[in-house]
């Protein structure tokens, strides 16, 4: 796969025979044993291996679940519970699969933030980054499809919201929506095609993962210093270590720590990341009070709901959909938006502050997505009571009160006088979740469209180290191994 010369030497008769026909052992050896890997990778770099484990876990547990699952509106909910009750260790397989999706996204977000911080998307790794974005998009589609399968209330009504978004697209929206749902509304046919696609997409992910690893192994890993490993044999030897055993053991340790967190969820709080409403069987006639997606989609949900205003002829709903898809689409062009020549933000002190702001914005967007947009965060003033009544001339009139007693007395007096009167609440102005979401959405886009392009041209980065070897030496002296 990579440019470095193969050092594989087949030892047995069989491997020699195979190597001249299908050098697959050589490929594996060069990719995962003798692959030269920068020696300064920190724990943020272990998430690639963790994600591979996540994908394998999801596919394996999913294949078993599919053996017992019934994709029909009458049988889906009960079949999931049957897995939990009557299939031997079915509860374990299902909880692994359901929580595995959350763990997968937790890992992928850390992996992506890692890439953004250390500039792993910059030349010559643009294709590597884009393939990662494709995987992320496929993951979101797979997760959405999978969430529909248990056929709970959130499954059904969440699917309604998402397909409704596609219906908001002009001209083609309704046709695509009907095509996705397999009819005019979500029903048995929708569940069956979602099941089929939910089984298909993970294998597409696996395919893109192979391309992702291939694209990684051509230039080799980026690293915290952001400088390339030297190509000359002596420099390469000083800058890198073979993948095995150095990174197999480090990744292995990180994977097991990650599995400890994973297992804590599976065994001790298996439903905490889900929503209680999804244990109520889907009922099209009853809409849950708050429809919220799974936590890993909340930031995008917040961006969708942040757009509450029309711009010219484009209605707010369509703008929201555009903003939401745009927030993902923009990731694909990050390599060309960031104009800085310096990869790692270790040497970009100003950019680092903006990046931390971006991480915080992402988390706060998640908070906004989970909250009711109209709820106040910071109330400004207190709510007033408005008594509406008809005055002596027969006109509508209102009187505003602070105290309930006074308002009620006034209302009762008006009623006693023979006119209609009623009390309503006038909400005090407040800084609401929707406002926070709007600010954060603006920052999200500004980070990519304004900050990254301009900063790269104007900031004055610190000096990059001459090599990874130098970076490690300097690193050790400055701060004694913070990440290791």
């Amino acid at each position, binding site marked *: 796969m990579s440019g470095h010369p193969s050092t594989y030497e087949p030892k047995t008769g069989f491997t020699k025979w195979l190597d001249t026909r299908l050098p697959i052992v050589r490929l594996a050896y060069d990719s995962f044993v003798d692959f030269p890997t920068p*020696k*300064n990778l920190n724990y943020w770099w272990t998430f690639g291996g963790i994600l591979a484990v996540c994908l394998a876990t999801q596919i394996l547990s999913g294949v078993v679940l599919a053996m017992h699952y019934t994709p029909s509106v009458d049988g889906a909910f009960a079949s999931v*519970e*049957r897995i*939990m*009750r009557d299939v031997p260790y079915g*509860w*374990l397989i299902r909880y692994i699969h359901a929580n595995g999706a959350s763990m997968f996204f937790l890992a992928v977000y*850390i992996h992506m*933030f890692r890439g953004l*911080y250390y500039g792993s998307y910059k030349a010559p790794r643009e294709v590597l980054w884009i393939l990662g974005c494709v995987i992320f998009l496929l993951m979101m589609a797979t997760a959405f499809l999978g969430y529909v399968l248990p056929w709970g209330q959130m499954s059904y009504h969440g699917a309604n919201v998402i397909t409704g978004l596609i219906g908001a697209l002009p001209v083609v929206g309704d046709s695509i929506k009907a095509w996705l749902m397999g009819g005019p509304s979500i029903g048995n046919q929708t569940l069956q095609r979602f099941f089929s696609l939910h089984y298909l997409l993970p294998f597409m992910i696996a395919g893109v993962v192979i391309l992702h690893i291939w694209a990684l192994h051509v230039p080799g890993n980026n690293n915290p210093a952001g400088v390339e490993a030297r190509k000359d044999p002596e420099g390469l030897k000083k800058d890198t*270590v073979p993948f095995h*055993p*150095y990174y197999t*053991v*480090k990744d*292995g*340790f990180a994977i*097991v*720590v990650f*599995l*400890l967190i994973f*297992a*804590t969820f*599976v*065994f*001790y709080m298996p*439903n*905490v990341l889900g*929503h*209680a*409403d999804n*244990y*109520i069987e889907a009922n099209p006639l009853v809409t*849950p*009070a*708050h429809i*919220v997606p799974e*936590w890993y989609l*909340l930031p995008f949900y917040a961006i969708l709901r942040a757009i509450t205003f029309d711009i010219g002829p484009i209605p707010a709903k369509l703008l929201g959909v555009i903003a939401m898809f745009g927030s993902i689409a923009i990731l694909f062009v990050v390599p060309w938006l960031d104009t800085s020549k310096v990869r790692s933000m270790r040497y970009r002190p100003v950019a680092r502050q903006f990046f*931390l702001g971006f*991480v*915080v914005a992402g*988390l706060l967007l*998640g*908070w906004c997505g*989970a*909250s009711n947009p109209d709820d106040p965060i910071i109330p400004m003033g207190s*709510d007033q*009571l408005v008594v509406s009544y008809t005055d002596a001339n027969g006109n509508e009139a209102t009187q505003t009160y602070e105290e*309930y007693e006074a308002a009620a007395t006034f209302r009762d007096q008006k009623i006693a006088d023979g006119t209609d009167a009623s*009390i*309503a*609440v006038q909400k005090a102005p407040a800084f609401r979740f929707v406002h926070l979401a709007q600010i954060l959405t603006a920052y999200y886009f500004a980070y990519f469209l304004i900050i990254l392009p301009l900063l790269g041209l104007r900031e004055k980065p610190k000096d990059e180290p001459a090599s990874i070897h130098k970076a*490690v*030496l300097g690193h050790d002296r400055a701060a004694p*191994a*913070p*990440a*290791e």
Partner: protein
Amino acid sequence: MKFLRFISAGLGAAALAMSAQAAGGALHAGPPEGGWAFEGPLGELDMESVQRGYQVYREVCASCHSMRLLHYRNLGEPGGPFYDPEYPNANNNPLVKSFAAMDEILSDTPNDVGDYEYRPARPSDEFKSPYPNDQAARAANGGALPPDLSVITKARHGGASYIYHLLIGYPEDEAISTREIEVPAEEAEGESEGEAEGEEAGPTTETQTVIDVSRMHQLEEHGGHYEGTLVQPVGQYYNPYFAGDTAAQWEGDPRHTPPGGFLAMPKQLSPGRVQYLDGTEATVEQMARDVAAFLQWAGEPKQEQRKSTGLAVMIYLLILAVLLWFSFHRIWRKVDH
């Protein structure tokens, strides 16, 4: 490392936000006094309580609520309240057999001449449902469908604690009163359209049930003080733990509506409603606690197996992590990194 702290703080905040999501304006249902035996990573169900809870379910809840995901055999399976190691196959457990046989069900297979007959239930049958279908259930309950209780503890925020508080959270008698109000003639006429004409068209009176929420101790303890009255709609009952909206029924400051909502189930538990076979005193709190424990078991019959397997898995992973940590340091000891 500042970076790491940032992310972990953010994740914590996000988790908090999520636990608060969609609470629905009802009182928060914390665990009852003394907590639950099944809480925590090592907690186990109090099986005697679950057994009593099954009695409460049968004698009180089962007349309206189905549990379609449960089979009688589940009661006698490992982790079930009537598991007996002498009968590894729960279908042979005499106690389970006798519980099943107490219910007559319509057989799901036709007899020799193709008719469906009633027969005593067997351990392999589903719990008998009180109504043949949802329509019948609605018709018998004023239009409201009593929810199936199979996974109710997983389907409600607060789980078993929610069930417990809902059952004991109804207003006490001292807070409830009735009042007569005059219904304007036109309205009364409009409501009784089609009835005999020529009846006296004067103002009629109507009896309303009203709740003085300032006298509800549940609100004082958990939700702050509320001053005003709630007008209970006919066939609906106020409960501060039930997720809903009280604004339309509230006579008081509209900025400060009491939490909770109205549900079609009246207060069910009164002292001595069931006579426990094991002699436990059937207080309202005891029955609520027992039936909540039973529903906690029913929602996830494998929860004890989950926790015990989890302990072994965690120990295994911890040991593996320690071994890998030392391997990592040994392998990297000569490399600057």
